């Protein structure tokens, strides 16, 4: 039986007791998936998984607080679920986790880049073992999956759901790359270059808050301090400084909580590489607190606790 | 079979020949192979380290380097004084700066990768007591023994890292294992006067005298040591002490390896009882013959 069939049987077995099960279905065209909220077995027919099922569905969990739901998660998504549980934002008893062993997902951005022109509407997509055949306006183009894989998959060390009620597919032995080229290159730049870079990108930011809304950890929702008057942290002016301020708020609120699912960057309509900030902050958190969000249950986010003697924080000579 | 590099030390070639021979004999008997360090040299004892620490350490380091060239990481010596120097040198060389100073003086640099132990520690920690028990042919039943460790074999604890530094038990346990009655000796780690025997005999007379006195108090037939210098002060100088303190001690002072060898039934010639100044026969006579002991 295929992974999808196994998943469907698993969901069937629990659907009865659940408000709904969150999965994926085809979106406006065969290339794009969109979240699917399965309430009846009929809905199950539309369920899809695979490299196109990119969304981190954990993002929807807090919206169902108090109700018992199921969620289909890839390894990376499961980290978000775990972190939400560790922060008591979601209760384990309220969630049935259908964990996948994931072979990696695509980056729509890379696909767009790989295709001769912006595809617009895609007629059909054939997913092969390691290739992707995309047909646009009668023209078929075959892309190597490896070339269009999302960055996070290249460095992913948790392809299989860490916590789950059902673990579907066959487990991987991950061989993640030590680091991402783009990240290393950017970090190597001079302060001036980096500053100029953010000045430019933040000038581009339209503060649509898509990055925030897509983030599974941004649970403040309507009460985000970036869009409130009391407290009023950011002005309405669309200035690079104000946009950067908003991004800094997002980063600092994610410090020690971000699970690097990449949703923020994926959701950005103006292609701001937000993961540069996320990965860097996570690196700092790893170095100082030996902490990785969502890698294990019952962890305390490092900024919600302390040690009287901090091994890795040296008072600077003053 | 356990294999360790062996550093006899200078006294082992002279005043404590019997310690060296008996040590080799018992180790052989207990399947501990002692491999002599080729071209070993002075450990840098008193004369050197009172004058120049780096030089003294270099002398030790040279020997450690030799062991490294043998491709071994564990060395053993019967002499606590050598042990102290070898271990202290290694301890100091943990500081890279000091290590460089030392290696500057050596042809073959020392990596400081050797752990030196006393033969006693090797026997106590690496030889199964049951094995020893099994090999005992003449149990020491009937003899009362006071174990005297000397002042430096266990101290300073952070350098020597062996046994309790105020109340060591390794020898006590070993002797008890051989069937001897070990009396609680309060001055186990007291100073015997050491090398003051030459410049200030009176000091040695007082200090060693106190040890013999304590031995007598606890009713010991004999004192057992693990240190050539201690043994010499207590044994060779016992006559002087008697004269100086108007005493008449007659307490034989053995090396623990001699009694161990005796119990294991090793050939007397290798144990060298005849080298002792205070006649040990009376004490040895207290040992019940095996058939009676059974």
């Amino acid at each position: 039986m295929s992974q999808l069939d196994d998943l469907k049987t698993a969901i069937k077995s629990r659907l009865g007791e659940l408000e709904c099960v969150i999965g994926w279905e085809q979106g406006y065209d065969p290339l794009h998936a969109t979240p699917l909220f399965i309430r009846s077995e009929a809905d199950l027919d539309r369920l899809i998984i695979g490299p196109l099922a990119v969304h981190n569905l954990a993002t929807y969990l807090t919206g169902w607080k108090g109700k018992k739901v199921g969620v289909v998660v890839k390894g990376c998504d499961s980290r978000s679920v775990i972190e939400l549980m560790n922060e008591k934002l979601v209760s384990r008893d309220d969630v049935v986790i259908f964990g996948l062993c994931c072979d990696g997902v695509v980056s729509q951005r890379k696909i767009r880049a790989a295709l001769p022109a912006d595809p617009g509407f895609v007629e059909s997509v054939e997913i092969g073992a390691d290739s992707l055949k995309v047909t646009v306006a009668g023209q078929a183009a075959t892309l190597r999956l490896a070339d269009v894989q999302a960055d996070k998959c290249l460095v992913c060390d948790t392809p299989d759901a860490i916590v789950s009620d059902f673990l579907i597919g066959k487990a991987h032995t991950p061989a993640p790359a030590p680091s991402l080229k783009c990240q290393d290159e950017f970090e190597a730049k001079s302060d001036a270059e980096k500053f100029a870079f953010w000045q430019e990108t933040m000038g581009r930011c339209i503060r649509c808050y898509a990055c925030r809304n897509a983030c599974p950890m941004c649970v403040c929702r309507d009460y985000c301090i970036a869009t409130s008057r009391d407290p009023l942290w950011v002005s309405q002016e669309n200035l690079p400084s104000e946009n950067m301020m908003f991004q800094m708020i997002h980063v600092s609120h994610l410090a020690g909580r971000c699970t690097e699912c990449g949703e923020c960057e994926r959701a950005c309509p103006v292609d701001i590489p937000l993961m540069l900030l996320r990965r860097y902050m996570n690196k700092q958190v790893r170095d100082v607190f030996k902490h990785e969000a969502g890698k294990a249950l019952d962890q305390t986010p490092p900024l919600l606790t302390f040690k009287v003697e901090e091994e890795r924080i040296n008072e600077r000579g003053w | 079979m356990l294999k360790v590099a062996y550093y006899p030390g200078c006294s082992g070639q002279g005043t404590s020949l019997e310690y060296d021979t008996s040590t080799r004999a018992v180790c052989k008997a207990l399947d501990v192979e002692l491999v002599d360090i080729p071209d070993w040299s002075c450990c840098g004892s008193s004369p050197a380290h009172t004058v120049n620490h780096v030089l003294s350490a270099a002398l030790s380091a040279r020997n450690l380097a030799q062991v490294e060239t043998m491709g071994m990481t564990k060395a053993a010596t019967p002499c606590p004084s050598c042990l102290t120097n070898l271990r202290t040198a290694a301890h100091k060389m943990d500081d890279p700066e000091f290590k460089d100073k030392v290696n500057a003086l050596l042809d073959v640099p020392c990596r400081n990768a050797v752990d030196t132990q006393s033969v006693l520690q090797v026997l106590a920690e690496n030889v199964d007591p049951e094995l020893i028990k099994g090999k005992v042919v003449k149990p020491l039943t009937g003899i009362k023994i006071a174990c005297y460790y000397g002042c430096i074999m266990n101290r300073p604890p952070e350098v020597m890292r062996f046994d309790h530094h105020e109340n060591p038990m390794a020898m006590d346990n070993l002797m008890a294992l051989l069937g001897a009655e070990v009396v609680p000796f309060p001055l186990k780690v007291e100073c015997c006067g050491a090398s003051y025997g030459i410049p200030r005999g009176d000091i040695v007379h007082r200090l060693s005298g106190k040890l013999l006195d304590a031995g007598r108090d606890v009713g010991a037939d004999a004192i057992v040591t693990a240190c050539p210098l201690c043994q010499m002060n207590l044994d060779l100088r016992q006559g002087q002490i008697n004269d100086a303190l108007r005493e008449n001690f007659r307490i034989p002072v053995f090396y623990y390896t001699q009694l161990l060898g005796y119990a294991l039934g090793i050939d007397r010639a290798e144990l060298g009882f005849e080298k002792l100044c205070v006649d040990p026969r009376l004490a040895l006579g207290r040992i019940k013959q095996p058939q009676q002991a059974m």
Partner: protein
Amino acid sequence: MPAQDVRELRIVGFLCNWCSYGGADTAGVGRFTQPTDLRIIRVPCSGRIDPLFIVRALMNGADGVLVSGCHPRDCHYAEGNFYARRRLEMLKRFLPITGIDERRFEYTWVSASEGQRWQHVVTEFTRRIHELGPAPSFNPKSDVDWNALAVKASQGQGCPCHGSIQA
């Protein structure tokens, strides 16, 4: 270093009320002369200092931000500076990726009795900031003296768009 001889730069200080603010007072009582660039904001505890205050100041064009609290273990509220230490360390380590020179932000511990130490900290930090020079601004350049306007605006005069920042 006498900051007096050059144009003042904008340095914001966040000090906890119980130790460091007292330390600054002690320095004053002892007449320990310091550069005048620093402006001190008083908060009850270093645990009250949101790293985002510092970011806000930097985004507003502060040239340097200095935070000081009670020495670890001496917090008036027992644990405030322990939390502060983690939060501030994270911010300081994060700044480089943004291209903002992390030397523009420093945090340290000064007790109410350490007037001299406070003088040293202020003098050293001010010197450092002057060596770094004025901080670049995120916002585009302009030939108009917007700063003057902004100052006036923040004083509640003209430029309605700035009313909002003052909330």
